[in-house]
């Protein structure tokens, strides 16, 4: 029982990482209808900028806020420069652009900051929480931040005119344009928000996995998987999917004898495939009905 509880908590801690990434993935999916393969590299780049600012002596929270704002601007800029011209191109052309962005950012990280592994400070410290062995302060902090982000997004999308306009632009661009919403800028805004969330995720993940140009690749895979498990159209579902994935992975690694430890990622993915067989649009996703 103790072991089970411990593994669930450890899974929750990993899950918080995946959930943060899944949230960023879903945000951009809602804005542009594509999965952004470069999301992880954007987050890594943001984390590197934060590391550099802190290394120059900037206080942590000042660097944190600065990087979130810079990432937002960067996200908007990427959309305006790179993806707006490809707006009418096929989904495949967009896919190549994502891979290109991935490659460019990854290479730039390595070129500017080299490939040595760097430690990244945690704002919450790494002491065990309330003297418990199950979870440390940073992991708890990550879970809280993910929950707060989700709450803010909910309020933004449900409670503000801008959020409503963004939802309209994503759901039905033509009609949205007719009622005076600037659809192009809504897309850019979606990129900006996704980049900012990614930056937060990157800065929270870096203390756990350590900072290097390839730190996000594995995390992004889990982020995608979590987002798809929860349903790509549902931010809350994506967060739950991320947590579920972390827990499944940990439990499989501990409790399935013989091949559990070596193949825990495979098992987690198999679980997802099995879920998708029953719920093809993810657990909380809306299934799309097409008109003929």
């Amino acid at each position, binding site marked *: 029982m103790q072991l089970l509880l411990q593994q669930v908590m450890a899974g929750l801690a990993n899950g918080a990482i995946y959930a943060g990434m899944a949230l960023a993935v879903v945000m951009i999916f809602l804005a542009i*209808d594509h*999965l952004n393969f470069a999301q992880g590299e954007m987050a890594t780049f943001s984390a590197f900028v934060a590391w550099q600012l802190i290394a120059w002596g900037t206080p942590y929270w000042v660097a944190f806020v600065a990087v979130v704002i810079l990432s937002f601007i960067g996200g908007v800029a990427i959309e305006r420069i*790179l993806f707006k*011209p*490809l707006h009418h*191109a*096929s*989904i*495949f*052309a967009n*896919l*190549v*652009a994502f*891979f*290109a*962005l*991935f*490659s*460019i950012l*990854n*290479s*730039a990280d*390595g*070129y500017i900051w080299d490939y040595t592994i760097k430690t990244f400070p945690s704002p919450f410290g790494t002491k065990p929480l309330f003297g418990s062995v199950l979870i440390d302060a940073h992991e708890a902090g990550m879970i809280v931040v993910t929950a707060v982000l989700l709450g803010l997004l909910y309020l933004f999308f449900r409670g503000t005119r801008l959020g409503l306009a963004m939802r309209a632009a994503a759901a039905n661009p033509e009609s949205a344009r007719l009622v005076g919403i600037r659809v192009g800028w809504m897309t850019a805004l979606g990129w900006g928000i996704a980049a900012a969330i990614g930056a937060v995720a990157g800065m929270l993940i870096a203390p756990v996995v350590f900072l290097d140009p390839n730190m996000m690749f594995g995390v992004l*895979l889990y982020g*995608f*998987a979590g987002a*798809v498990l929860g349903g*790509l159209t549902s931010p809350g579902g994506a967060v739950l999917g991320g947590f579920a994935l972390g827990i499944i992975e940990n439990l499989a690694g501990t409790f399935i004898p*013989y*091949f559990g430890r*070596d*193949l825990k*990622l*495979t098992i987690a*993915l*198999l679980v*997802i*495939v099995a879920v*998708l*067989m029953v719920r*093809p*649009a*993810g657990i909380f996703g809306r299934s*799309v009905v*097409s*008109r*003929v």
Partner: protein
Amino acid sequence: MTTPQQDTALFAPAVGAHGAQRAAWPATRHWVLAGVLVIAAVLPFVFQGFVVFQLTEVMIYGLAILGLNLLTGFNGQFSVGHGAFYGLGAYVTAILMHQYGVAYYWTLPAAGGVCFVVGTLFGLPALRLQGLYLALVTFAAAVALPQLLKFHGLEEWTGGVQGIVVDQPDVPGFLPIDTDQWLYYFTLAVVLVMFAGASSLVKSRTGRAIMAIRDHEIAAAAMGINAPLYKTLTFGVSALYTGVAGALGALAVQFVAPDSFSLFLSIYFLVGLILGGMGSLPGCLFGGLFVLYVPNIAAEVSRGLAGAIYGVIMLLVIFVMPSGAAGFTRLAFAYVSRWRHR
């Protein structure tokens, strides 16, 4: 996700733009084909060892991309996991040759057969899933394969992280050529047969059914096409093509190891397919060229920024030719013939 109209526009190449010169086109096409074949036959005598090996690799990647193209370009099903089928084919060949001493040419049908079966099984869940959700399932395959190959329970066959060394194919005694050249011609022959097969498949009644499903699945089903059957079979055939390419790859490289078949291989195939041109057979070879040479070119320009340069080249290609090399050629032809007829 997208409306049916958009879907059609996504995949359909710019057909009809050159309706007028369609009659003249097949004749030109035969001449081009003959020219390419002659050049392909002479190349190993023009270049030396390593270049011949690289050209062999280009054909192998082209074949793998053709497999992906049958699935994505012609049938409209996504896969970001074809590297897994490539790896599976390579391992079938390696294991058969290493453990059971099977002759290298017999391993190709075996690799194709295994991949066909696995691919068809993959096609079953694919029936329920669309777009990104299907992409995730194939993606799971790409991520899981290296882990499975390293798994200690299978080490007896797969050699674990160490991989397997594959023997070099022997050149038939009566031919005055070296191993690289022989491998090149062997690959060329296999690739030709496979391309011819794909070409007739696409032009057949079955091929039209496959493409009808891509363009509008509901309408296709309404016309009496058994969509689930064709979709699963296309998955199987697609995996077969990529698996045979993997088997050839194992022969060419003479070594298989789990990490050669990572997710990045699948992504390279996808990039090669898109830049070569969805739904175009010759485009696959362009894709193979891109996959093999562009990373090398990028690394030569600057070692530190190789990835960035590779990315920039990808962007340039996609901005100049949004529908890939095949779409670009088609547009160029249409433009030239319009200009001539004026």
